[in-house]
Each structure stands twice: as structure tokens, then as C-alpha cells.
């Protein structure tokens, strides 16, 4: 058969595209539920990692239910909108970030680690090549950082991708996101040697400047939404 005829080429291309499209649609449809379950489980693992709980080889669902005692949805004025289970978990933070601050629904996970209350805040931002995200756990004083977890979709391996590694994340532990005057100032991510007057700082990644800046901006944007919540007096507050 002559495979160089226009008709043959056209038919070949059409048939190929239809077959491939059907195959991809079928695979994607058939696997959707399993994939969604995996994504949910992974989110729970990430939240637990911000509390520095090792989920390796353990039932993350059980650990999550053990440590996370409450899931809250609040607004920017720190009024609690919902305490129902799974409602905070299902909030799409990326969508909320594109709304006006007043109408955003902000999830807070309340955890209990060894009898102490921790608040976990969801972070979403952009790095150099794509989205970056994370979770940040605060102590009961809503000021001291208890632990962080960062991850990314496609930052450069060995450079920006190091935000997902413990050496970078451990730097945040014990830092304060409020100033001495109890104002929200976030944390600066700076080159070693640089410093700011008002903020506490962590070292940026060499070769990953834009990703580091992305982390700094993400902290400022996402924690900033909780301004009112952070400054609420707490029972055991240090200020």
C-alpha cells in the first residue's frame, strides 16, 4: 500500500489521535478515584510533617486522627465559620487566595502534640518554575514556629528543590513571626550576612534565589491573612 498518499496520511492521523484520546480518557477516568484518595492521604502526611511527625511506613490516616483534634474555618477577622470535620480540609486555598481578603475562608488545623496545642496554617505560593506549597505549625502563643513543611512541583533539583529538604526547613523552628510590638512581620529569607531590622531571618538557598524569594512571599501572603487570629490573646500567651 502507498503510505505517502494524502488520504492515507489524513486517515492515519485521525485514527491515531482518536485511539490515543480514548485510551488516555479511559485511563484517567478509571484511575481518578484512587488518585484522589492518594492526594488526600498525601495532604494528611504533609500536615503531619509540619508537626515533625515521621509518617514513614505508618498509617497516616490513624496518625492524623490522633494528632489533629480540630479543623477550623475562620475569616480574616478571626471569626470561626465552621468547625465541622473535613470542611477545612476540603478548602481550596489557591481559590481562596484569588478572592477578596474579607470573603476568604481560611483553614486552620488545631493539633495536640504531647498535650500542647499547635496551630497549622496552609501555605500556597509560586517558585521559579511552578507552584510551591507548605504547612507551618505554630506554638500555642501563635507566634513561635514549631515546624514547617515545604514542597514544590518543579523547582530545579539540587538548587530551589532543596526547600523540600530538612536542613532548610529546620531553620524556621523557634523563629517568631510577630515583632516585639506584637505586629505581624513574617520571616525574611535572606542571603547569609544580610539582615533586616524588624524581621527574624533564615538563610536562603544558594542558586535558588527566586525559589527562596517565593518562600518569603508565600509566608508573608499566607500568614498575613491570619493577622487577626495571630494577635488574639491566648490563655497561655507569652506576650
Amino acid at each position, binding site marked *: 500500500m502507498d*503510505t*505517502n498518499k494524502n488520504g*492515507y*496520511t489524513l486517515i*492515519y*492521523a485521525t485514527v*491515531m*489521535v482518536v485511539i*490515543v484520546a480514548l*485510551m*488516555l480518557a479511559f*485511563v*484517567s477516568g478509571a*484511575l481518578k478515584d*484512587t*488518585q484522589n484518595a*492518594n*492526594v488526600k*492521604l*498525601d495532604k494528611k502526611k504533609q500536615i503531619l510533617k509540619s508537626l515533625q511527625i515521621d509518617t514513614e511506613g505508618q498509617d497516616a490516616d490513624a496518625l492524623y486522627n490522633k494528632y489533629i483534634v480540630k479543623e477550623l474555618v475562620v475569616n480574616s477577622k478571626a471569626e470561626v465559620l465552621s468547625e465541622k470535620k473535613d470542611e477545612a480540609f476540603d478548602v481550596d486555598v489557591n481559590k481562596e487566595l484569588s478572592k477578596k481578603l474579607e470573603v476568604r475562608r481560611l483553614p486552620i488545623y488545631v493539633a495536640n502534640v504531647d498535650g500542647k496545642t499547635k496551630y497549622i496554617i496552609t501555605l500556597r505560593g509560586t517558585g521559579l518554575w511552578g507552584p510551591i506549597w507548605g504547612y507551618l505549625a505554630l506554638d500555642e502563643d501563635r507566634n513561635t514556629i514549631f515546624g514547617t513543611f515545604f514542597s514544590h*512541583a*518543579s*523547582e*530545579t*533539583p*539540587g*538548587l530551589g*528543590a532543596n526547600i523540600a529538604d530538612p536542613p532548610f526547613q529546620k531553620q524556621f523552628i523557634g523563629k517568631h513571626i510577630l515583632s516585639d510590638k506584637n505586629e505581624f512581620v513574617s520571616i525574611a529569607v535572606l542571603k547569609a550576612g544580610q539582615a533586616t531590622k524588624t524581621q527574624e531571618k533564615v538563610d536562603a538557598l*544558594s*542558586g535558588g534565589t527566586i525559589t527562596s524569594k517565593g518562600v518569603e512571599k508565600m509566608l508573608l501572603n499566607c500568614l498575613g491573612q491570619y493577622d487577626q487570629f495571630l494577635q488574639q490573646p491566648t490563655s497561655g500567651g507569652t506576650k
Partner: protein
Amino acid sequence: MSKLFSDKTKQVFLGPLSKNNPITVQVLGICSALAVTANLKPALVMGISVTVIVAFSNVIISLLRNTIPNRIRIIVQLVVVAALVTVVSEFLKAFAYDVSVQLSVYIGLIITNCILMGRLEAFAMANKPWESFVDGLGNGFGYAVILVVVGIFRELLGAGSLLGFRIIPQSFYDAGYMNNGLMMMPPMALILVACIIWWHRSKNKELQE
């Protein structure tokens, strides 16, 4: 077995490991070699993924080779590779989520890897499925070997570790040793690859121009 591994097939498999290496001799897949070799682990993962994908897309193209219209053959090859990579990544997402998270950066790099197009066009379009499969494996391994060597050097000298484990002891750092930050930058991969090519050509005189 004797038929499966005839002299020609053996040559097809062993060639890419040295005399016809995809990176050092064919100079294919350089871009991804620069991108993923800052650490050893992604280099290994990328090497394995490319081996699997190039072997199987070679088989598929080889089976279709007599039906593919000449004028759109590149498009057909691209569709096969992209479909294969997408299906594999969907399955990984469903059944091996952790692996798929690890691979997320590389999915795109695999599809656009020049080795795939190069082998499909140069070998699979003209050879039987079994030979094509072996050719895919050989080229994948040839690619992986270079990636691993470059990855070892860059991670060891750039971060003092291998696969994330510290290799250079703390006492060295206390004595004034410092990690070479330049090793983490892509240009260093290019220089390392060039050194490998240099060594390789000095060993194989017939490759010198």
C-alpha cells in the same frame, strides 16, 4: 537464546554503552543530563525512567514502522512517546504515589528527551521489534551510566554527600574544607560531560576526528 542474542543484537546492546554512547558520542540528551545531575538520586531515577520509556516506545514504533506515513512520522513518534509517558505517570499516581511525586519534574523532560526521538527515528523506524527493544535498553543504560557518573561527582564535590548521606566527614570541614558550590550549577555538568568525552575519545582513537 542463541537466536535472541545473535552477534548483531549483542552489538546493538553493547554499542551504546561505549563506542556509540548516546551522550558522549551521539551527543543526545545533553539538556536533561545538565538538569537532573546535581544530585545522584534524581540522576538514577531519570536514567531508569528513560530506559523504560525508550525501550517500549522503540517496540511500538517498530511494530508500526511499515504503516507510518513518511511525512508525519515525527508527529506519530511524538504522540506515541507522550501517550506512553502520560499513561505510565497516571498509573504511578494511582498505585505508587510517592514515586510519582519524585518523578513529577522529569515527566516533561522524558517526553522531550532527544534520545527518544533520536532512537525512534534512527533505529526503530528501520528495525524489527526485538532489536529495537534491545537498542532502547542499551541506549537507556548508556545514558544512565553517564548521568550517574556526573551525578556522583556533582553531589560528592558540591554537597559532600551521596544519595543524601554525608560522605565527607565533619572533621574535613573543621579543617577548612568547603563544598564547591559551582558543582551545583548546570555549567559544571557540561564541563564534567566534556571531561568524560575527552577521556572516552582518548581511549577510543577511532572516535577522534
